[in-house]
């Protein structure tokens, strides 16, 4: 069976059915991972006593395959009476998995803010929460923009993992086409090209965003 280019084009509309979900999963997972990652990091910093506990959680998250975490959530949550749409369970799984990595990004980003900044904030009598919110986080944001951008692409490329719990995303709709037509090469080719296109768009968007962040306030 040879690769049939016109067939690859012909099935694009059917493969594309999943793209909306793919983008949605990527966005939800990115926001979820960033929020949860920041939460881990702030929790890790807040008290010396909780620090090792949070560190253990982060290490555990990062040492287990994302696929296993997603399966686990999908099959275990219903036992506890939590039945959510597969798309949400999957997005939460990806958020959870990537939050472990994001917390390390935020750690490095906060560490890179000079100690003098928190000393100045403290000496002015700002509360801990205000110091984090108005002094540390805005400066951290510039430090983490690049690595967060890179993780947003990783997350996008991990969305096909959700095909295993039957979320109708790009890979899922491509597999549907494949099982209908008994041709795999063309649907997978389409999926690859579509991910390449989305990644390129995302990279361009991130570059724009970084340029804007760099412009609005001078660093150092």
């Amino acid at each position, binding site marked *: 069976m040879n690769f049939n280019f016109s067939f690859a084009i012909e099935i694009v509309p059917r493969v594309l059915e999943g793209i909306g979900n793919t983008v949605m999963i990527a966005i939800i997972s990115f926001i979820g991972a960033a929020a949860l990652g920041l939460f881990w990091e702030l929790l890790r910093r807040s008290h010396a006593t909780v620090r090792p506990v949070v560190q253990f959680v982060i290490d555990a998250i990062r040492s287990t395959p994302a696929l296993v975490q997603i399966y686990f959530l999908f099959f275990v949550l219903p036992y506890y009476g939590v039945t959510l749409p597969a798309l949400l369970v999957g997005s939460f799984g990806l958020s959870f998995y990537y939050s472990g990595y994001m917390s390390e990004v935020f750690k490095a980003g906060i560490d890179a803010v000079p100690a003098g900044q928190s000393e100045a904030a403290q000496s002015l009598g700002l509360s801990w929460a205000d110091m984090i919110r108005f002094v540390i986080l*805005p400066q951290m944001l510039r430090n983490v923009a690049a690595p967060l951008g890179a993780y947003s692409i990783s997350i996008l490329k991990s969305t096909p993992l959700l095909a295993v719990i039957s979320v109708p995303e790009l890979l899922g709709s491509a597999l549907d086409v494949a099982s209908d037509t008994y041709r795999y090469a063309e649907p997978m080719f389409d999926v690859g090209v579509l991910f390449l296109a989305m990644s390129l768009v995302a990279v361009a968007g991130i570059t724009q965003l970084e340029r804007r962040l760099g412009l609005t306030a001078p660093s150092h």
Partner: protein
Amino acid sequence: MALQTNSCSGNAAVTMEQLCKWYGSFQVLHNVDLSVAVGERIVVCGPSGSGKSTLVRCINQLETHEKGRLIVNGVELYKGMKGLAELRRDVGMVFQQFNLFPHLTVLDNCTLALVRARKLARDQAEEIAMENLKKVRIPEQAHKFPTQLSGGQQQRVAIARALCMKPKLMLFDEPTSALDPEMIKEVLDVMTELARDGMTMICVTHEMGFAREVADRIIFMDSGRIIEQAAPSKFFKNPEHPRAQQFLGQMLH
């Protein structure tokens, strides 16, 4: 438990009794006794590594002490105490490296704590900020970012930012050491004016001209101890301790 210790501190801004501090096993402060009266201007000097920064940073608990007592503005401070943020609002601090917030304009640097900590309305906070920027003679820079200013200007903004909180006490840790020589005077002038207005000040500085003109008392530190304290006239003319003599010899020649 924050003790109100009016009885033993009288009108002292700062009282230290047998203050000790360690970094790990290294003792930085050895039984430091010091009392600073309200309105008094103190200059702290001594060789590098003698514990001047540590001493000053204990006063607003950027460093905590392990032994002895420390009473600031009538409240005893100790490790892990509650309400520290509130107490710090009455103690201004100016750092060697300015430590302005680079992502905020000069004006927002000054208003942040007024709005968030003092809970003032925005326009009220801006009014106070502009007053203090005028006092340090850079109101026209209010809408610039710190990195657009010279070192001397940045340090004057840092002073204005601290003054906005209407502190009862100002701490300076080598405020001119990071400045180019031609900018030192503009900062010292502002500090001198502040002293004339009656501000209680504790300044770590090696600007001996400033010390002579402004200080009520000079504290000389060596190896974590205060080994001499005297009025400037006495300190500069005939310091008692050999280490102080040696230090002055290096400073003045």
